[in-house]
């Protein structure tokens, strides 16, 4: 177990190195630089700026220095947000994004799993067909269509929630709903398929045969294995929620990581973009490891190798 975790963590290093290298050189190869702003910067001042940020050094030196610093979690100062270290911006944005994504994931599981179980128990009835059609629709409506639609109806129409920003509990509702809907639908589909698979297995028949109440059979014996597909989906789901939160943060003007990423990319804020991408990558890998560990907890048949 420990050996497994250590090996997985060690495997992350080359992957992160690859990502760092790829993004670093991609940005350096790109035409244009961070100081090609609206205003022309006079020559000496530009020299000064380039020296301050170490851009005058040979490329390989910049690269090595970047790697050494990044390993310590230091991505240098932002090019655009004057005087602010990238790590500080990331920490600030991450708190917001994590709250948004965390709520969305929670809503997805808390709504999706019960819906899926109900559909499975009512298999091939109108309830089942209705729920599954709605789920497929939920998967298909993009969040940047759903977001404006929700704003239009619930916010501008009914005045229930503020249409934007991230201040106060009421402002959380629409962004979380926008982000979560697709995952509620997907989790429901996964749960339904998983439950149908499990409920026809022998140990369920045994449990029923020994006279356990149906509730115990379904929820204690069935659900435990039935939600496994959902658990293994949580890793990819988190990755997609991060991608989705970029859009949702743009729609609702939420100061999260995704918004910094998009703006940083437009501003050619090299250090900020590199920092955010590396942070996301590391975060996703840790998340996937946790998911794999959770998997072994739930399914005793799985062994870590």
């Amino acid at each position, binding site marked *: 177990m420990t050996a497994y975790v250590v090996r997985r963590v060690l495997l992350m290093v080359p992957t992160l190195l690859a990502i760092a290298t790829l993004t670093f050189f991609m940005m350096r190869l790109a035409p244009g630089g961070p100081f090609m702003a609206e205003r022309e910067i006079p020559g000496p001042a530009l020299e000064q700026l380039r020296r301050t940020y170490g851009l005058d050094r040979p490329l390989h030196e910049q690269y090595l220095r970047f790697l050494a610093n990044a390993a310590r979690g230091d991505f240098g100062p932002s090019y655009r947000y004057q005087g602010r270290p990238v790590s500080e911006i990331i920490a600030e944005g991450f708190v917001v994004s994590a709250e948004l994504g965390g709520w969305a994931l929670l809503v997805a599981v808390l709504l999706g799993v019960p819906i899926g179980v109900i559909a499975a128990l009512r298999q091939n009835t109108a309830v089942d067909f209705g729920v599954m059609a709605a789920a497929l629709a939920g998967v*298909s409506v993009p969040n940047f*269509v759903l977001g404006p639609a929700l704003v239009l109806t619930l916010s501008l129409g009914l005045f229930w929630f503020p249409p934007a920003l991230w201040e106060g509990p009421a402002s959380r509702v629409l962004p979380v709903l926008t982000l979560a809907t697709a995952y509620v639908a997907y989790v429901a589909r996964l749960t339904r398929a998983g439950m149908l698979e499990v409920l026809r297995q022998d140990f369920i028949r045994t449990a029923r045969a020994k006279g356990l109440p149906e509730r115990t059979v379904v929820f204690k014996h069935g659900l435990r294995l039935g939600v496994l597909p959902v658990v293994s989906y949580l890793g990819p789901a988190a990755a997609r929620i991060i991608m989705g939160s970029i859009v949702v943060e743009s729609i609702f003007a939420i100061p999260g990581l995704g918004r910094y990423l998009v703006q940083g*990319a437009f501003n050619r804020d090299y250090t900020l973009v590199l920092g955010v991408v590396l942070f*996301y990558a590391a975060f996703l890998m840790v998340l996937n490891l946790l998911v794999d560990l959770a998997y072994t907890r739930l399914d005793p048949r799985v062994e870590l190798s």
Partner: protein
Amino acid sequence: MSIGLAPPATVAPDLAASPPRSLWSDAWRRLRRNRAAVLSALFLLWVSGTAALAPWLPGMPDPSVQDLARGAQPPSWSHPFGTDELGRDTFARVVYGGRISLLVGLVATLVSLVIGVAYGAVAGYRGGKTDEVMMRFVDILYSLPYIFLVILLLVFFSRSLVMLFVALGLVQWLTMARIVRGQVLSLKSQNFVEAARALGAGDFAIVFRHIVPNTLGPVIVYTTLTVPAVILQEAFLSFLGLGVQPPDASWGTLVSDGARVLALFPWLVAFPGAMLSLTLLCFNFLGDGLRDALDPQDRRDVN
């Protein structure tokens, strides 16, 4: 005389009397019975037909003609989807936007199909060390937060349509490669491959003439599901301002533009948003239907 190199029919003697039914005719019958899939296919035919033929359809307004006197009008008989701030007909804009969205979906899917099938087939057929190295490479790419790379690629290099095709296609081929590799691994030890080899077929011919055609079922299913994924990603990028650039418009840019004036002219986001969502929904229904039709073993959540 041509020697049949197709997989030998493994018909048990007692079944040989009944007329042979191929996988395809079986699948076709199953698909036709799936009403949602059939309706979806019809809807997609209608949408793509309208989009493809738009410039030649009688009565189709020009999407770029501005008429400021008739700007920002709600839906009416003369403008069923309303007009935008510049007086352009929203219906025509949605139809022409569909041209771009569907085109991106098809081309990027084609890019991913070609790369994925070739890569997966070679890895699976070679096996051993080659396979291990090739698939490890895919694993590494999988673990990359690719959407960020796509964003960076588009921001730093160019925001042309071609770049969009390439960027989206490059992202999508990984799963295809895995699927094809798995199929090839299980197919390559079968008798018909042995027969082809015995007849002197080269590796290239064996892989691409004999093995790959037999992986078509899963490939078709996954392709059907890749198209909406790509359309969605194009719309996502366009929504962020990174995808299709003016004067071209896709459903993603229309939704993005419409969302800015949401409170004033809601129809500008409603119609392109609805078309985009419906199209994605239909592709998903069709993909599900095809999977059920082509892959009878994988029907556990259907029965």
